[in-house]
């Protein structure tokens, strides 16, 4: 059983890597198909792993299924113009590396995955960002994590996450470095600006794939909580305040942003910060809400950025939310997909985020009765920003010079419909998803509450 699990994990991780290499030599018209096939294999292997995993220890597998499905959808939605060998290869490389990170039971493997996911973003031809901040943030976060792991190694402890549980290896210095890595990677204030820069200048869909790996949250759930339970309790308050402040700061910042990509980045970042706030609430509701919200944010932001890129390809890249563009006349189904994904991100009833927001708000308010109020306020502002973006892009007078319908193509339509169905059906029947995350949440919660019980989330 153990060997089968290892083999499946190997397939899920290595297949995308192999495909990324192969894609360099195959004809361009086959690139999308090859990428799709590789991602599909990853999805299948991850799904088999999830089926075989015990409920309390299935967070990694659930994340693997989610991320590989996301990559699968990305290979279908990515417009023809962007579907180059480099783009698909890079996405598959990020997919394999992210799955490696989710599977890591060893600090060195985790560091390798952390660094590997950032590698494509240092290739200037692939990631043509205009500011220095994204690369600096990724580099510094990797350096901070590497330093923390080096200090753990020097202090003579093991590299195995299982053996290091509750050991507080390296003490406060290591904890500070790990926290620094989380802040940088997750885009927590004051290190938040790189996210908007990355999305604004770089290739949208691959960049969102990187951001949706949620490695910052993973580091909290997988390393900080199990390894530093005592210190984490005190640190969590500070991190929680920072996360809540980030959620509000970025939500306010988004109110006057007129460029669609940074605006969407602000909304996504604000909602992502809510995940961290929930994880740090130390309540079962908050942590479960955070884990469910991670799923919602991942699917919704991928859908939103995908639709935005499709609009850019059809109507030009200088889209703005400063005035009404009336694109809904030409792309009514994209408009509907956009509004559903957008409102699903901010707690539309009938979608999965309604449940996750409900749990998040309860958990955060229970642990921080006053500062927890920032969460519903930030979410309300994000909802206004989402709706403003929808109205400005899709409503208003129709365009001249563009008489044809430019709605979603069948492959885009079916992929986006699958995403919408997931968030809607997940919202109508949330009990299984919530129960799955709830089992994990109790494990994380116990790690911060009890002294002798550290079952961890990586006990295999």
């Amino acid at each position: 059983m153990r060997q089968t699990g290892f083999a499946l994990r190997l397939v899920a991780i290595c297949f995308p890597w192999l495909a990324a290499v192969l894609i360099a030599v195959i004809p361009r018209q086959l690139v999308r198909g090859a990428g799709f096939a590789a991602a599909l294999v990853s999805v299948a292997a991850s799904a088999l792993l999830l089926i075989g995993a015990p409920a309390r220890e299935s967070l990694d597998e659930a994340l693997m299924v989610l991320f590989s499905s996301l990559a699968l959808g990305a290979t279908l939605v990515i417009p023809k113009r962007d579907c180059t060998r480099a783009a698909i290869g890079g996405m598959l490389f990020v997919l394999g590396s992210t799955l490696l990170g989710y599977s890591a039971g060893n600090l060195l493997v985790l560091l390798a995955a952390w660094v590997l996911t950032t590698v494509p973003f240092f290739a200037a031809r692939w990631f043509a960002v205009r500011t220095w901040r994204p690369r600096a943030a990724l580099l510094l976060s990797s350096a901070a994590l590497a330093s923390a792991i080096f200090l753990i190694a020097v202090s003579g402890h093991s590299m195995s996450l299982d053996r290091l549980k509750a050991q507080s290896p390296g003490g406060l210095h290591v904890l500070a470095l790990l926290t620094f890595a989380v802040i940088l990677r997750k885009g927590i204030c004051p290190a938040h600006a790189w996210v908007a820069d990355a999305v604004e200048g770089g290739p949208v869909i691959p960049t969102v794939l990187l951001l949706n790996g949620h490695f910052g949250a993973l580091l909290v759930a997988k390393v900080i909580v199990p390894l530093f339970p005592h210190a984490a309790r005190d640190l969590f308050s500070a991190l929680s305040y920072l996360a809540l402040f980030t959620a509000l700061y970025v939500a306010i910042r988004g109110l006057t942003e007129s460029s669609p990509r940074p605006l969407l980045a602000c909304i996504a970042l604000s909602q992502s910060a809510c995940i961290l706030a929930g994880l740090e609430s130390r309540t079962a509701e908050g942590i479960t809400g955070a884990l469910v919200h991670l799923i919602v944010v991942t699917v919704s932001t991928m859908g939103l950025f995908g639709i935005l890129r499709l609009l850019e390809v059809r109507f030009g890249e200088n889209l703005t939310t400063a005035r009404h563009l009336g694109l809904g006349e030409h792309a009514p189904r994209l408009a509907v997909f956009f509004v559903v994904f957008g409102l699903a991100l901010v707690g539309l009833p009938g979608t999965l985020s309604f449940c996750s927001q409900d749990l998040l708000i309860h958990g955060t308010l229970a642990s921080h009765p006053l500062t927890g109020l920032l969460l519903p306020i930030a979410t309300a502002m994000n909802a206004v920003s989402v709706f403003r973006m929808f109205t400005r892009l899709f409503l208003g007078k129709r365009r001249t010079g563009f008489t044809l319908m430019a709605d979603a193509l069948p492959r885009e339509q079916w992929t986006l419909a699958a995403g919408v169905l997931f968030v809607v059906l997940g919202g109508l029947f949330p009990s299984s998803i919530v129960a799955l995350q709830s089992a994990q949440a109790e494990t994380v919660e116990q790690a911060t509450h009890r002294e002798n019980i550290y079952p961890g989330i990586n006990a295999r």
Partner: protein
Amino acid sequence: LDVSQATLVFVVLAPGVLFAVFGMLWLMGWAPSERVISTATGLTFLMSVFGLVGMVVGLVWTSDDSVTVEFGNWFAVHDYRFPLVLMADWLSLPFLAMTVVLSGLIGRFSATYLHRERGFLRFFLLLQLFAFGSLLAFAAGSFDLLVGGWEMVSITSVLLIAFFLQRAAPVENGLRVFAVYRACDIGLLVAVFAMHHWAATASFHAGLPELSARQSMIVGLLLLAAAAGKAAQVPFSGWLPRAMEGPTPSSAIFYGAISIHAGAYLLLRVQPMIARSGLATALVLAAGAITAIHGTIVGRASSDAKTSLAYSSLTQVGVVFIEIGLGWTSIAIAHILGHAMVRTLQFLRAPSMLHDYHAMHSASGGEVPPTGQHLEDLFPRSMQLWLYRWALDRGHLDAILERALVHPLMRLSRIFVKLDRAGLRTPVSPSGQYAVSMKTTAGGKGDS
């Protein structure tokens, strides 16, 4: 499930199922004809009306107080439960009946009124979603579930305000209304949390959560904020005239009948809780009284029929708030039902107002006596002029909210943008050029 329970489930779910089916079919590329969608809508609400009549007869026959359907927990985490309970008692039944009757009538009216309108299907889909949201809110057995229906009503309301999507004004007004709704809904969310926190439940099908006097006051005030936002009470009244940009049938059902009274329903539901707190009661009375006076003054200076009717609605809802504050709940329910029916009729007749006036003019032999001067005559001339200016600007409520809240927030946002871009050259957009002209057409005006 017995017959009554099955009927309740059908009444609540039917419009939602219809919305989901038609919506998914449209997304997959099939657009139903006007006849199909209007007939399906009409039949659904007709069956719902018969179902509700049967349910009322059943309740009277069995002398029961309510029909309750418990589906267990929608989801549960640790000690926290989200109960899925539907309930039809003597408070919710009038609201359920009002919703299905008026939704059916509006559906029938709109089949003709919006014939060949480009957004015909969209209107009916939103009407179904709105009916589902309203029925869910009124039939909810817990505040958790009520929030779901409540927010669905908000979203459909906003999407219908922006129905004529080629014109900028309705779209911008929809955004404005959405912002007010979301801001006020924070009160509801926090109140639900507070009930869970203090009483470990937010269900009310077996009685309201047990709270101390201080806790009741806090929850009551939070719910009052939510109710005031939804019912456009002062200081949130500014959104109501903006909401008149939507098509007339939606204005009728939202702001003449159902949505505008949802806030009153919420207060009726928690009236015992509010009655325990002097402060909450005083604030309910004050909000109602101020809104009633505000509505009647501003309504008299409104120059278009729908806005005038909207402010008349506001006045009546203000009076309903007073009745709730005084504990006259039965009178409040009767007032709501009567008001909703009359106001819906007035809204639906609003586009024919000139025609009606001419008919009345002819019938009265060319002389229609002026009415409504008695209130103005109570004030001296100088006061009348001052009040007129005040009413024209709708009590300066929008200006006050903008100066106190919106402008500082926007200023703060701009500062944050500058901070984030500090040390960078002005970012330029991605490399592409316009693929199509971004000029707008000269025409493209929608129906008003």
